[in-house]
């Protein structure tokens, strides 16, 4: 039981990965080894507890949004392919490929995709107004919904169920004029209109944003 082959045999027996002959041989040695028997029993109990406590699936928060986001991205990828199809690099040979047998089918697909995109856009985003297309709040107790207010001439995204900010907490605003964009570094300084650094945006080990005040 102290060498790797024994460890392998132990897990293979536990996980029912042995053939019959191997299993018989192992069970014979098991009968003669109380320590090994105790180990098998302990690991079996552990496995039973793990299986009873760990779900084989985990409900995805906002499952419909999960699916619809994937469909949106697939549609975007299709449209990107369509754009590639019309890329200037292909212009030189366009008369040639128009004569190819698959052109008619491809053109039909292009028209269908473009028409679908146009239809979607017309139906989901009326001209002139900002529109909220979809929302997802990771915290299940937060409910997000949107509407357009004609009186305010604004689109409103309401978040119900947010926890209040403690009253003794100071909320400090900044007057940010612009930020630098440097692809080489993971931090972004935010400047005032006088060019002074107000904040620096960085990311932590979990890729979560951290905003650090710049002190001199």
């Amino acid at each position: 039981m102290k060498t790797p082959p024994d460890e392998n045999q132990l897990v293979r027996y536990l996980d029912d990965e042995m053939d019959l002959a191997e299993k018989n041989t192992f069970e014979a040695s098991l009968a003669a080894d109380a320590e090994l028997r105790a180990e098998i029993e302990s690991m079996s109990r552990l496995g039973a507890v793990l299986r009873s406590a760990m779900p084989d699936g985990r409900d995805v928060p906002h499952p419909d949004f999960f699916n619809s986001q994937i469909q949106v991205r697939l549609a975007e990828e299709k449209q990107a392919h369509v754009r590639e199809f019309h890329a200037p690099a292909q212009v030189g040979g366009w008369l040639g490929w128009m004569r190819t047998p698959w052109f008619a089918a491809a053109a039909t697909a292009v028209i269908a995709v473009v028409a679908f995109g146009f239809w979607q856009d017309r139906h989901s985003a009326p001209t002139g107004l900002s529109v909220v297309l979809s929302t997802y709040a990771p915290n299940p107790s937060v409910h997000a919904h949107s509407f357009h207010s004609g009186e305010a001439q604004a689109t409103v995204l309401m978040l119900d169920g947010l926890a209040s900010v403690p009253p003794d907490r100071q909320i400090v605003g900044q007057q940010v004029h612009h930020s630098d964009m440097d692809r080489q570094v993971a931090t972004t300084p935010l400047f005032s209109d006088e060019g002074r650094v107000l904040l620096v945006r960085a990311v932590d080990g979990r890729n979560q944003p951290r905003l650090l005040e710049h002190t001199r």
Partner: protein
Amino acid sequence: MPHSLTAARLFFITLMACGGGGVLNGQPAATSFEASPIIRKPATDGKVWGGLIFASPKGKGTGVAKGDLPAGLRDLPVRLGKVFQFAHFELLGQHTQDVFREYESWVVPSKDLFLKVDSKGKAGGGGINLHLQFWQEQQVLVKTDAVLREGSPLFISGPKWRDGQLIFVLMLTMPED
């Protein structure tokens, strides 16, 4: 312990990224910012203005000087009052930001509440398709796909605070031609 280490490292990275080289060279940090090499600006899809507003039941006037607000939003307190039942709207912070085409952009009128903005390209009928994430410190409050159009602000209701509420306003101020 890991928290403090992370913060220390972040601060170091920050110093290096924001002029730490200047400190190491014996120059003041502020000078090294101004002297940082000019980086070619990445392509953008427009410019947005983000403001953090504190709405409360009482206060003098609207709390917002018209000069503080971008053109097209000078009547912001009145418009906010049509949606949120408060008398006083104070502009706590604001940030005008390019929306980068291929990189994430951040609109940070406060380090307490801010937005991550990802452009998904031009929208049909004008404006930009955006993926927005509304953050409160280390937490995403909401993720949303939205079309932002010039002159049509997006009001996002934030958490309650003291006797009022925090509101984030996002507006497309300059779409890219």
